[in-house]
């Protein structure tokens, strides 16, 4: 091959490499940017007066005097709207029965749209569920609700051959000729004064418990549960994995039995996580009865079993990559085999072992299937360290799934779901980062 071709090939290979790295970076950006931009809306958003009321009533947070002043201000704007509604209710009573019945249903819709926007109508009995005690806490949602108050969504079924189309009907038009017609332009132009939106940074999203099954509040129980489960899994899996790796590399004789064990280990690494989940339920909870119900302990054990093969494999590789000369030097100085392993080989292999550990830790934090049946619940409070042996816990991975599909108001609280995703990604990233730093430190120490 002449020099020109070789250079060309070399260059094109470099270009290919750079290209693939760029593509990977872009993919990462495409995946991470929406997570970041959507996730941050859980913490930073335009909060309304209702949000500040909620924070004060539930967590006693915020400036009471300032809040009272704002409530008075918004109530002044709201009062007019409620007066219009009361006037129309009085007007309805005077109507003929037929006319009354015609308006009643439409008016009920208006009333419930108002309640969704501003919270319960003053003078009526306060609802039991927190989600109905307040109006819209987020300005973006409030704008949607306002649209629903002003326009009724209808479907055009007139052409049977094509799919029906959606169109908006102004509610004001259907109350033409009554006193209520004034309500709609009034609310539309005064909505700012009724809800007093301002940019809010709600860090409590990370440190608060959820209120009324994630309708409000934060995700601390989920974050804590995730950390408990991941750390618990490591506590079991890491020592076991390292010990098993030492056995494989230092003690086991090469033979049929040993290769069988190795391939069993590799197979285990490829088993779907839901299988581990069911195994955990059948073995740890139903057979061993490590706890009376689902618990962090049972979940950790299940996750530990799931990540064990990876830890064993990576620890094995790390131990095998320790130069033979280290071993020989130690033994020649009269050290015993055990002493050599503990004082020479394991420290030298530690960075590699840690890498495997960290990858597994990230996986344990993110897995859903193994904890469905063994540890995760959709609603529960943050548990103390003493409760890990008996109590189940909410966990980010499972609750993201739950909010995405099962929650009765899933579409209302997408921001909570995004916030959870961001929190989970951040936790995994931070775990990885701390391990990289730890690894770098240890390597430096070993060299120096």
């Amino acid at each position, binding site marked *: 091959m002449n020099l020109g071709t070789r250079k060309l090939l070399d260059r094109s290979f470099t270009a290919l490499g750079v290209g693939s790295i760029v593509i990977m970076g872009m993919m990462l950006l495409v995946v991470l940017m929406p997570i970041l931009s959507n996730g941050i809306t859980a913490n930073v958003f335009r909060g309304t007066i209702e949000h500040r009321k909620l924070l004060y009533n539930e967590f006693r947070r915020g400036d009471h005097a300032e809040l009272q002043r704002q409530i008075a201000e918004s109530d002044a704007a709201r009062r007019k709207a409620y007066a219009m509604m009361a006037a129309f209710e009085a007007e309805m009573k005077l109507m003929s029965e037929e006319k009354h019945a015609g308006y009643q249903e439409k008016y009920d819709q208006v009333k419930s749209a108002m309640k969704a926007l501003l919270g319960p109508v003053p003078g009526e009995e306060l609802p039991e569920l927190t989600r109905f005690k307040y109006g819209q806490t987020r300005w973006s949602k409030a704008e949607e609700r306002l649209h629903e108050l002003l326009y009724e969504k209808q479907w055009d079924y007139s052409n049977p051959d094509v799919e029906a189309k959606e169109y908006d009907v102004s509610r004001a038009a259907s109350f033409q000729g009554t006193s209520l017609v004034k309500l709609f332009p009034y609310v539309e132009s005064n909505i700012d004064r009724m809800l007093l939106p301002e940019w809010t940074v709600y860090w409590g999203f990370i440190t608060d418990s959820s209120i009324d099954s994630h309708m409000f509040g934060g995700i601390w129980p989920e974050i804590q549960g995730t950390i408990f489960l991941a750390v618990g899994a490591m506590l079991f899996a890491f020592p076991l994995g390292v010990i098993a790796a030492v056995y494989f590399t230092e003690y086991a004789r090469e033979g049929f039995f040993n290769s069988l064990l190795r391939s069993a280990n590799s197979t285990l690494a490829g088993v779907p996580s839901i299988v581990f989940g069911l195994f955990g339920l059948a073995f740890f909870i139903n057979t061993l009865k490590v706890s009376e119900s689902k618990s962090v302990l049972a979940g950790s054990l299940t996750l530990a079993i799931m990540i064990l093969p990876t830890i064993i494999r990576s620890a094995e590789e790390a131990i095998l990559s320790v130069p033979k000369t280290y071993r020989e030097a130690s033994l020649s100085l009269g050290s015993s085999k055990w002493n050599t392993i503990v004082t020479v080989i394991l420290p030298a292999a530690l960075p590699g072992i840690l890498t495997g550990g960290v990858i597994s830790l990230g996986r344990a934090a993110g897995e859903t299937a193994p904890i469905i049946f063994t540890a995760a619940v959709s609603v*529960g409070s943050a548990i103390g360290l003493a409760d890990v042996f008996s109590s189940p816990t909410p966990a980010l991975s499972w609750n993201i799934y739950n909010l995405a599909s099962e929650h009765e108001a899933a579409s209302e609280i997408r921001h909570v779901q995004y916030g959870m995703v961001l929190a989970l990604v951040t936790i995994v990233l931070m775990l990885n980062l701390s391990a990289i730093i730890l690894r770098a430190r240890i390597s430096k120490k070993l060299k120096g």
Partner: protein
Amino acid sequence: MKKMNMLKMALYGAAMIGLMTSGEALAEGKKLVLDGSTTVGPLAKAFASYYTKTTGVEVTVSESGSGNGAKSLINKTCDIADMSRAMKENELEAAKSQGVNPVQNVVALDGLAIIVHPSNRVKGLTKEQVRDIYTGKVTNWSQVGGPKAPIVVIQRESNSGTQDSFKELIMGEEKVSEKAETQASNGAIKSRVASTPNAVGFVGLAFVNRSIKALAVNGVKPEVRTVKDGTYPVHRKLFMYTNGQPTGDVKKFIDLPKTPAGKRMITEIGFVNNY
């Protein structure tokens, strides 16, 4: 230098443990574990936060389906099993062999709403029509007065109490067509139907909202009134099963639907009071 590091580490450790143990102060050792139906889920979650707030007893709720709820009760891993159907013979037998005595407690009434996309012009179906759609006899909306479009049939998984109720109340002896698509929860069916113009599915009454349209069955719309008086033909009871007659905290929790606050929560969630 080394000592410094140790000290630092000890400090970090202490801080971490402090952070972790700062979970909410709860009544000593008292807790309730609920597992089961995704239909009863919203109600169980509302009751749970109410109960924790008023008594300090920690309550956890899992939504894994009625079948799993029954299994959990039989394996004694939960205190209360939420179920959207009554326990089956084989479950009762399994319970007996494990020394568990399942007691049925009604929490609320529910109407099984047959839901379609709001763009669908169909307003109501008869029970027979719903059955024919699910057996696969009727495959196009135009056969039941709708647009010319194939019907996307959606059902629940075998573990679901809602699926069992649907089979019992609508299907009778007939089998659901193999072409039917399966979703794993009420919420999942709802979002699938809300995003698919030609789909049909079924959910508990509390899951009906503006994103979908609930059909009238035999001319009766699923509403609180029609479910309560039984004129809506696809209605059922929602249960919370306990091991033996409920006592103590379990009893107080089970009796919530009889209290004024409990009744209001049931109404606000969208179910129908039994008491």
